[in-house]
């Protein structure tokens, strides 16, 4: 079942001359985890905003083509209706946190308030999300008194607690410590196995290589490639689009060691270990 259908999407911000998205088409199946990569200015965040309807409903500007998420056509749907189907973790957590609530706990509750949940269900979801992101102990703290990474954890927890069918995450681990990032990827993997559909913009290429089902490579507002990670990261012209291949791939390429089965350079730690075999 298709959860996201983007058809020839074109978009220009009101203050801009150039299109930020120049005719993007892609389809995403239910229960998939899609990694979105590309250099700064490629249109990754704009695509995220288009999936949740902030483009065009909040930003306005020129819009063409169509986006259907969870069965709703974005252009014809209210942001509030879309929000029940698809959640967005913002690139900058400071812009996501509402400022309307005085505690971390209430900030997470805020998103759940209009969902018609009973109290017990609400409490259970909040506790679970805060625990998953390891910030339960800060539940009574003012969100703006958190460290950057803790704030980013809060932004992710707020969306996960809403349990939408689709979650879009825009560089959600940029301020997380290494174990925190790994935990977010594991959580994404688990949500996926429960049937959720996830789209994540990330510069942590090694993690995308390990976890994503497919990778969308954006550059200059165009979709350059949309394929399995091994395919995308094997492109010899990857660097031309402002993306470095995983370090494992770069090493194996320099050593001219390919994976025997696929005939391609490995993209993960396990793959590289198997291909290199042993040193000394």
């Amino acid at each position, binding site marked *: 079942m298709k959860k996201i259908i983007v058809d020839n999407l074109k978009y220009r911000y009101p*203050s801009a001359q150039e299109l930020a998205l120049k005719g993007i088409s892609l389809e995403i199946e239910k229960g998939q985890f899609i990694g979105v990569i*590309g*250099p*700064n*200015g490629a249109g990754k*965040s704009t695509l995220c905003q288009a999936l949740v309807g902030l483009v065009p409903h909040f930003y306005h500007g020129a819009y063409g083509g169509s986006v259907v998420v969870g069965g709703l056509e974005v252009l014809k749907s209210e942001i509030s209706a879309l929000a029940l189907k698809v959640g967005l973790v913002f*690139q*900058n957590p*400071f*812009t996501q946190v509402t400022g309307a609530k005085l505690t971390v706990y209430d900030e997470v509750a805020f998103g759940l308030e209009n969902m018609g949940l009973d109290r017990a269900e609400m409490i259970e979801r909040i506790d679970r999300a805060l625990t998953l992101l390891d910030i339960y102990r800060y539940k009574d703290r003012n969100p703006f*008194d*958190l*460290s*950057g*990474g*803790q704030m980013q*954890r809060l932004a992710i927890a707020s969306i996960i607690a809403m349990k939408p069918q689709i979650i879009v995450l825009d*560089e959600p681990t*940029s*301020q*997380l*410590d*290494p*174990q*925190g*990032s*790994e935990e977010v990827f594991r959580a994404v993997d688990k949500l996926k196995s429960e049937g959720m559909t996830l789209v994540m913009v990330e*510069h942590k290429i*090694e993690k995308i290589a390990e976890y994503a089902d497919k990778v969308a490579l954006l550059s200059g507002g165009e979709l350059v490639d949309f394929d399995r990670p091994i395919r995308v990261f094997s492109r010899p012209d990857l*660097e031309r689009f*402002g*993306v*470095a291949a*995983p*370090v*494992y791939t*770069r*090493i194996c390429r*320099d*050593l001219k060691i390919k994976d025997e089965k696929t005939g391609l350079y490995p993209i993960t*730690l396990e793959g*590289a*270990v198997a291909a*290199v*075999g*042993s*040193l*000394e």
Partner: protein
Amino acid sequence: MNSSIVVEDLHFAYNKGEEVLKGISLVFDRRSTAIIGQNGAGKTTFAKLLKGLLKPDSGSISIKGIDTKNTTAAGLSRHIGLIFQNPNDQIFKSNVLDEVMFGPLNIMKEEKRARDLALGALEKVGLVNELEQNPYDLTLSQRKLIAIASVLAMDTEIVIFDEPTIAQDHRGKEMIKGIIRELVGMGKLVLTIMHDMDFVAETFERTIVFSQGQVALDGSTREVFTQEELLKKAGLERPHVTRLGAKLGCSHTFLTAEEFVSFAKKSDHRGG
């Protein structure tokens, strides 16, 4: 040697009874230095204390012989520059050039010179074509670069970067690496807070690990990344290439892909 930053038994709490920094003693020298550690470990708090934006509860910080307790952040600003983790906390002007000129103008009161410094800094971060833009119409990665340029324009002897590579793509990261190396080459004291272990391994001589308000490890970057267990306890991981070497059973702690490749080529040779 007369070190520019000496920290002795530093304690700090935002709220009584919840100490965030629990006795930090460090002397910084001219080695390029990274500070790494779990979210909430106290890295940003430490940077704000060095900059004089917060005052120690006890212990002391001396910046070029000046005790931060006896001066204001403004008084320190010609010596020490801090690039904030969140650029929105730092940027307040409505055009890029004004923002970057603000600092230098404030210390030297000389428009022409301040403008030159600002343009030079914006050149370094690749934003000279955005002078008239409102920073809030730019993307997060660009705002972060504006924040960096603002501090570079001050030409301070001490520069602290708080997570400079947030939101940067591959090219942006390489550019920031170049800027850090250049500042170190100029003899400045550069401290960088960072979660990107590969970047740390490739760039810094000395690495300090913060854990729950204390210094858990401090040494050459290679020594620090040898300590797998301690790093794990501190919420960290080793760089990708270090893990690859370890998985392959190699006793050497690799810090860069280049190191690994040249080692592998040599050992291949020996093997025949």
